[in-house]
């Protein structure tokens, strides 16, 4: 549809994965995006996992109790922490991306990112404390 030459290069074909995730020598924006994509995908994965696990309920009490026991193990709690990090990061960065993407706070995007991250860090610490103490 566009009457322009493609930016594809036969000698150096595009490598989309690298373009997105090779963040060496890239700045904040790329790191933020790469992490956003990873956490986004992680969250989708988790959603499925979550449904699979919930479906254990359908198989009766024994399986569920065994799972709850597993879920109380430190390793599992650590994974919870990672999940919480993912949710918090993705959600907060998502707010920034959503705002900036519609043209609000563009010049302040860096400050916005770090402000949200400070809030995120506080939330994360509080949540992890709750996870390990309750």
């Amino acid at each position: 549809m566009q009457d322009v030459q493609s930016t594809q290069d036969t000698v150096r074909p595009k490598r989309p994965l690298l373009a997105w995730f090779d963040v060496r020598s890239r700045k904040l924006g790329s790191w933020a995006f790469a992490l956003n994509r990873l956490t986004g995908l992680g969250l989708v994965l988790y959603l499925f996992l979550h449904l699979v696990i919930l479906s254990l309920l359908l198989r009766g009490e024994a399986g569920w109790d065994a799972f709850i026991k597993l879920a109380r193990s430190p390793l599992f709690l650590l994974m919870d922490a990672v999940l919480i990090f993912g949710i918090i990061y993705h959600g907060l960065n998502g707010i920034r991306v959503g705002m900036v993407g519609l043209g609000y706070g563009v010049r302040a995007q860096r400050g916005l990112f770090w402000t949200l991250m400070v809030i995120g860090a506080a939330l994360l610490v509080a949540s992890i404390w709750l996870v390990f103490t309750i």
Partner: protein
Amino acid sequence: MTKEITFKVFRYKQGDPAPHYDRFTVPCDENTTVLIAMQDIRRDQDPTLMLRHSCHHASCGTCGMRINGKEELSCVVKVLDLGTPTVTVEPLENLPLISDLVVDMTGFYQRYTAARMPYIRQSEFNPGAEPPEGIDRYTRYENCIECGLCLSACPVAGSDAEYLGPAAMAAAWRAVEEPRNGDGKHALNWVDNEHGCWRCHIAFECSEVCPSNVDPAAGIMNLRRKLTGSSLLRLFGIKR
């Protein structure tokens, strides 16, 4: 003070099966830029090394390269400031390679000109100054020097070969922001598609590498705001 610096330079000649890197050692002093080092290599060691350059002061935009992995104008990067014993020099990404450090700018310029931005804008420098007799207002060139660094650094351009790219959309925003020979509608329509402003993922790499204060990412976001605004208004039956 001169220091021997090794350059690892990307090489490719048409007909080669694949690109490779060559190493050259060049004495560099505190004034030596990466561009001068490349020219010294061409003069003293390998006359076949191909590179683009013209103004030598960050004004023409031809000398863009990836220096130690980062998009830069090689004419303003001093070798010794890099602080690495080996300096890797590669051509820009996301444009077809011609040879060695030279890429084909055709696709860049096709996109860049599509927004029809005039190259002369109002000067905002020395705002209090009154223009001299015979001159209505001070004018100057647009900031963008058409170097393509932004396109090379942009991860979306790294995956979508049709992407309009940051510089072209920054030009579109300029055509909207300061309409000089039109109303900017053409530019707005032009970016309003899946290879245009909506494709951008707000990585800000373009603005990070831009050597000429264009801030293309902000331009793209402003285009989006404008487009979102007018489609919202349309939703409520208001036409502007």
